[in-house]
């Protein structure tokens, strides 16, 4: 089947505007992650969804960032009032999670966000 897809692949926006980034995980994967990779940095955890449980939002850098996962599938990451330091590649990953297991993640190609 298809892998993780993300849209758009590239987004250029002006400072202060809101942006929405979309992630379609692999069908049947109950866990979904958002990461951010700034230039020269590693992947920074943002948020994690697992089934119907409350998401782990501990990595969101500010209240301008939020994410939803509708129907346990598609997820949208929203950044309000974008700042230049938000410029990064935003990566989504999904995994098939079993209790007690450590599943690997499958990553999408990312959305490259540039805030002017």
């Amino acid at each position, binding site marked *: 089947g298809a892998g*993780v897809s993300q849209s758009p692949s590239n987004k250029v926006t002006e400072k202060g505007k809101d942006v929405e980034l979309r992630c379609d995980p692999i069908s049947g994967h109950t*866990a979904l*992650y958002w*990461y951010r990779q700034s230039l*020269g*940095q*590693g*992947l*920074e*955890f943002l948020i*994690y969804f*697992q089934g119907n449980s409350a998401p*782990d939002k501990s990595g969101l850098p500010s209240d301008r960032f939020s994410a939803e996962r509708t129907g346990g599938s598609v997820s949208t990451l929203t950044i309000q009032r974008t700042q230049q330091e938000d410029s990064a590649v935003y*990566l989504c*990953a999904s*995994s098939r*999670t079993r209790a007690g297991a*450590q*599943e*690997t*993640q*499958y*990553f*999408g*190609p*990312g959305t490259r966000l540039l805030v002017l």
Partner: protein
Amino acid sequence: DQQVKQNSPSLSVQEGRISILNCDYTNSMFDYFLWYKKYPAEGPTFLISISSIKDKNEDGRFTVFLNKSAKHLSLHIVPSQPGDSAVYFCAASAVYNFNKFYFGSGTKLNVKP
């Protein structure tokens, strides 16, 4: 505070030789470690993993070594091939939150023909 560190941003190796990529971590609760490979304009793809109950895991040309006392792991690629040229990330998770992964900043490997 970065809990997983890859101190070498780049590495250049001749085709056929061994590539050794290093990773250090600070959290003693980490018990599961992974290596991912990333080509330009693509997302990272899983390469190999190791649990803390082992000190070595091998998969073809790729071997990961774990030294828990030193909080250090390494990825060995033997023999290196030009197609191995990519950015390699190490990642770790802890038993108390095994779905939260901490990534290093990556090492760019260049294998010269």
